[in-house]
Structures are given as C-alpha cells and as structure tokens.
C-alpha cells in the first residue's frame, strides 16, 4: 500500500482544479491506498458550508466531499493558517476536517509516496 497525498489549493467554481483534485482522490480511494486529502491556500473555500452554485450553473460538489468517508478517505485536513488568513474557523465548514499546522503538513508530504497539488 502506498501513501498518496493530495493538496487542494484552489477555490471552487472559478476553475476546475478543485473538482479535478476531488476526482483524483476518489479514483485513488477505489485502489484502497492510504490517502491524505489536504485543503490549503484558496482550497479551504471548498469546505465552507452553504454553497448555492445553481445561479452560475455549476455543480455542488459538497455531497461528494461528504461521501468521502464512505469511500474510505478518512484523512481529511485543512491547513490552519489558510483558514485564519481568510477569517474562517471550523464553524464555517460543512464537513468535518482535522486542522493541521504547516509543520504537520510538511511531515505528511515527506512521508508520502506521491504528492499531487491541484
């Protein structure tokens, strides 16, 4: 079993990066690998509760994020300083994530076999 770590660094909707990262995480889960899914930088906006993208004809991916646990993706992190910079706290988030410090994230990266930033 390998450890695959995904860094989701981009906001939802404006570009397809967030969705592209999620699809990769789901594909990795099918292979039953050890997956770390880390939201950082603009990526933390993906977690904010209450998205209503119907007005921009976009798909709400929150259900897919909430279903990650069913797929065996349990290591979901948000970089604490990225939340703080954006005046966000855990109370704003729709899905349960573990907060991590920059040092903890660096350590997760170093102990991974493959790291994908999208």
């Amino acid at each position, binding site marked *: 079993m390998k450890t695959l770590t995904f860094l989701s660094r981009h906001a939802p*909707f404006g*570009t*397809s*990066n967030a969705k592209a990262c999620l699809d990769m995480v789901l594909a990795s889960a099918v292979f039953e690998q050890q997956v770390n899914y880390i939201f950082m930088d603009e990526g933390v906006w993906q977690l904010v509760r209450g998205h209503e993208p119907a007005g*921009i*004809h*976009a*798909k709400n991916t929150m259900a897919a994020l909430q279903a990650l646990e069913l797929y065996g993706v349990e290591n979901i992190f948000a970089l604490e300083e990225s939340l703080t910079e954006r005046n966000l706290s855990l109370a704003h988030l729709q899905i349960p994530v573990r907060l991590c410090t920059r040092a903890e994230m660096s350590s997760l990266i170093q102990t991974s076999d493959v790291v994908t930033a999208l």
Partner: protein
Amino acid sequence: MIISVMVTGSPVSQQSAQTALSFCQAALTAGHQIYRVFFYEDAVQLGSALNVAPQDERNLNAAWSEFVKQYELDAVICVASALKRGILDDGEASRYQKPAANLAEGFDISGLGQWVDACLNSDRVVSFGA
C-alpha cells in the same frame, strides 16, 4: 446600447464562458443589442461540436450554440486560436487536409479584424476570462 463581448477562458476549466453567457442573456433581456461575440484563445473550444458533457452537468458548448442560433447572433471564433487548438470548419479542414471538421452550428471562423471591427462599432465592450 450596442454591446460586444470577448471570451478568452477555457470553457471547461474556467468559469468565464459561463459568466459571459449569463451576461449576454441579461443584456438582451434589458433590451440591448449584441453586435458580436468573439471567442479568442482557449475560448475557441466552445466551438467544438464533439464535446460530451457529463449527464449531471451543463453542456456549455451546446448552451452557447443554441443561444447564438436562437438570437441569430454574430458569433466569431478566432481563426488563429482555432487552428492551433484543432477547431476547424469544413473549409479549414479541407485546406489543411485534415480528416474531419468539428465546428458547431452557429459559429463562424474568422480573423482578429472581426474583433477590432466590433470595438469600432459598439457602444460598450466587455471581456471575460484570461
């Protein structure tokens, strides 16, 4: 007012082509006239007739194609951008001896001069995407 719109962003990986469509629809609703829509750079992929959208997502190419046909808009795909990205009408496909054309209905392939002409003949001009 007479308005022209330029779109430059990739229709799949950027939001700009979606924003531009909503803007154009709102402009017509408000009684304005659209002189021309010009697709430049990655936005020329909106002219592909071969794309297939996931069942639970909007097919933006089809939505644009239907919109320009319904209102008989002048929708121009930049020829230089299109050739580089493999968007061809029958004429270009035959000129470059390519096995197929893939331009969707409602769009014309033409030069950058069409955009300059739009700038000269419109009261307002708006660009979408990078």
